[in-house]
């Protein structure tokens, strides 16, 4: 048992293309309770210099979580998912995601460290458009609590 440290640096295939839609952005903004018009009103977004409505800063988690599942769910990595909590999250942005973007996400296991009885696993997930433009990178750290 335990997390296999040999998996540090392992990369997983990019996801199928994901199309960011106005409706999904509006649903997400409503769910987080953020009424910012740049998330729902294309003319307000255009007046602010964006081609279409943009997504809230944490929206990319929808895409990075799906991609990092390939890494986290890899049986060889040996994470006990029932014992896992979300420890840290970070995003770096080249620009906001926006409606109409068609993106792919690709995950790499960028950190495995033991802290006492816990193991922290970090996946780094790059989101790029299908044309290769970098939009955002997500760094998610899951903490597996030791069972002993």
């Amino acid at each position, binding site marked *: 048992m335990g997390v296999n440290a040999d998996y540090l640096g392992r990369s997983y295939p990019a996801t199928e293309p994901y199309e960011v839609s106005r409706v999904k952005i509006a649903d*997400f903004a409503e769910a987080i309770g953020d009424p910012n018009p740049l*998330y729902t009103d294309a003319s307000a977004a255009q007046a*602010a210099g964006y081609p279409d409505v943009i997504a809230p*800063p944490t929206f990319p988690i929808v895409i990075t979580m799906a991609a990092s599942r390939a890494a986290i769910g890899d049986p060889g990595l040996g994470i006990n998912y029932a014992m896992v909590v979300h*420890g*840290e999250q970070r*995003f770096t*942005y080249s620009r906001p995601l926006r409606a109409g973007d068609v993106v792919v996400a690709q995950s790499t296991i960028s950190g495995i460290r033991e802290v006492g009885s816990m193991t922290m696993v970090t996946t780094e997930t790059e989101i790029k458009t299908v044309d290769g433009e970098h939009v955002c990178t997500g760094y998610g750290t899951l903490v597996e609590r030791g069972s002993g």
Partner: protein
Amino acid sequence: MTKFADVTVGEQLPPASYPATRLSLVKYCGASGDFNFIHWNERIARSVGLPNVIAHGMFTMAQAGRYVTDWAGDAGALVDFGVRFSAMVVVPDDDTGATIDVSGTVEEKLDGNLVAVALTARSGDAKVLSRARAVVRLP
């Protein structure tokens, strides 16, 4: 819109409070695709040792994101945004739910009109985000 020239290191941003109710969490489950039982099922949450249903960490991070983008005046201004989830936001089954109180301090002004803001988020007595930092590009 907040202007780079008007920002001072050490400046405190006006604090803000955001609600987290059971309804918020159900909506967030649907919007994010994270349907973990601990975010909506009190019976299962308690059975795994939690005090009650808890908010998604990413829901709390979203409130901190709203806080910074509202202050910056541009929802697309973030260039870097990171948090550590240091405690749970416990959401009781009542009409008010939990409250997430966010505050921030300007930590640094950087080249390229970038401003780093140190963030704090609390719910009740618990510090729910730590090492929370956002870097925004201001005009």
